[in-house]
């Protein structure tokens, strides 16, 4: 089998990066974010990036790394409230933002990966989100047409992966990763644990190997917590 395994993020991205790419990034908040890949993109110095990602990280983590260095031209996101650098860049006119409702964003990515150029949704009808978009009435109700999204490179983070590219996600770290993996010409995955082919149960695989072109083990991971919220015993 053609080798998909690389030794680290830098090696896995070798030859893929250039200015003005559209990156599809998994993760929600700081969970399930491809941190090692994002750091390698930062180190590469490519700029003018369009990033499709539900959030924009925080200062010093997630896509926050690429915002600080001014490498991002445009974000397509649903919520960026956690990132102070974001606000500063935006107010200075140095960053474009296209807000999508979270479900519309998730579905646009899923559609892009599934060969569906457009779909209709109730979400956003009658709001700014629908302005300039086609609408259509089905069974007496108005819907807005949304387009599929398909990028150049998908960056995803999984819990376990096998050497053929099958991925398994852990708990709420699944989030946007499965769709992002399908919605780009090239998908690179970082995993906490890389196992031999055949070690994952075929019924438990969340992302089939066909989507993942390059894979590496990014361990160890120091998982960040954005809102540590606890109760007393």
């Amino acid at each position: 089998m053609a080798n998909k395994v690389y030794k680290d993020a830098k090696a896995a991205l070798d030859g893929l990066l250039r200015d003005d790419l559209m990156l599809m990034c998994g993760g929600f908040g700081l969970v399930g974010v491809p941190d090692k890949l994002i750091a390698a993109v930062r180190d590469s110095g490519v700029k003018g990036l369009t990033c499709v990602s539900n959030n924009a990280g925080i200062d010093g983590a997630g896509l926050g790394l690429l915002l600080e260095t001014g490498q991002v031209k445009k974000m397509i996101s649903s919520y960026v409230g956690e990132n102070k650098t974001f606000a500063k860049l935006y107010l200075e006119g140095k960053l474009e933002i296209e807000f999508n409702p979270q479900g519309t964003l998730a579905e646009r990515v899923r559609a892009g990966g599934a060969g569906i150029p457009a779909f209709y949704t109730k979400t956003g009808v009658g709001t700014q989100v629908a302005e300039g978009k086609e609408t259509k009435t089905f069974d007496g109700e108005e819907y807005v047409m949304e387009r599929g999204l398909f990028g150049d490179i998908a960056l995803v983070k999984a819990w376990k992966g096998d050497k053929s590219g099958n991925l398994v996600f852990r708990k709420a770290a699944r989030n946007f990763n499965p769709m992002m993996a399908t919605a780009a010409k090239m998908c690179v995955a970082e995993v906490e644990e890389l196992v031999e082919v055949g070690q994952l149960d075929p019924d438990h695989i969340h992302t089939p190997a066909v989507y993942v072109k390059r894979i590496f083990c990014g361990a160890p991971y120091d998982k960040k917590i954005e809102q540590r919220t606890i109760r007393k015993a």
Partner: protein
Amino acid sequence: MAWTRDQMAARAAKELKDGFYVNLGIGIPTLVSNYVPEDVDITLQSENGMLGVGPFPLDNQVDPDIINAGKQTVTEVKGTSYFSSADSFAMIRGGHIDLSILGAMEVAENGDLANWMIPGKMVKGMGGAMDLVAGVKKVIVTMEHVSKDGQSKLLKECTLPLTGRRVVDMVITEFGVFSIDKHGPGGVTLVQLADGVTVDEIKAKTKAALTIGPTVKA
């Protein structure tokens, strides 16, 4: 007098029915889970991709991979399942969640809702709010009745950019409970007064056309 935030949450909890699948927004809606009636069993959904959300963890139970849509650490319950955000919003958009409780900046008498942006201020994004109000079977808003500068938040028409058009079924404020005929011409009906609040007080602080429900004593 009026209701406290906890009393508003407790009142919202009375709308929960056994077997409901419920999505709770941040703020007062989050408090609702503290007041679920004993004979009612509900399942909480979190739109990032989790069904069966438990309470916040004990200090030694924190798992960084288990968070809710507010990015807070939470726990599993028996029967929890995880899924992608696309599958999560398929669930929401497809009408499979029974109830969403969320906050608002403004609600109009036709059920229009504004809760995501103020022109001229930094916009953080709508997150999943537009999907929730468009897709969930019943939408309850919990909010302060008037804004910090004393303006009614229950209006004839929203002045802020909308989150959804004709989406709110019920509003709970510190002054009482209001039902909204979002698909028809019925407008806002006061269905319950908070303790120590009078109908006249509410009328004075409400810009939406208000009907006083038959169960309310003026």
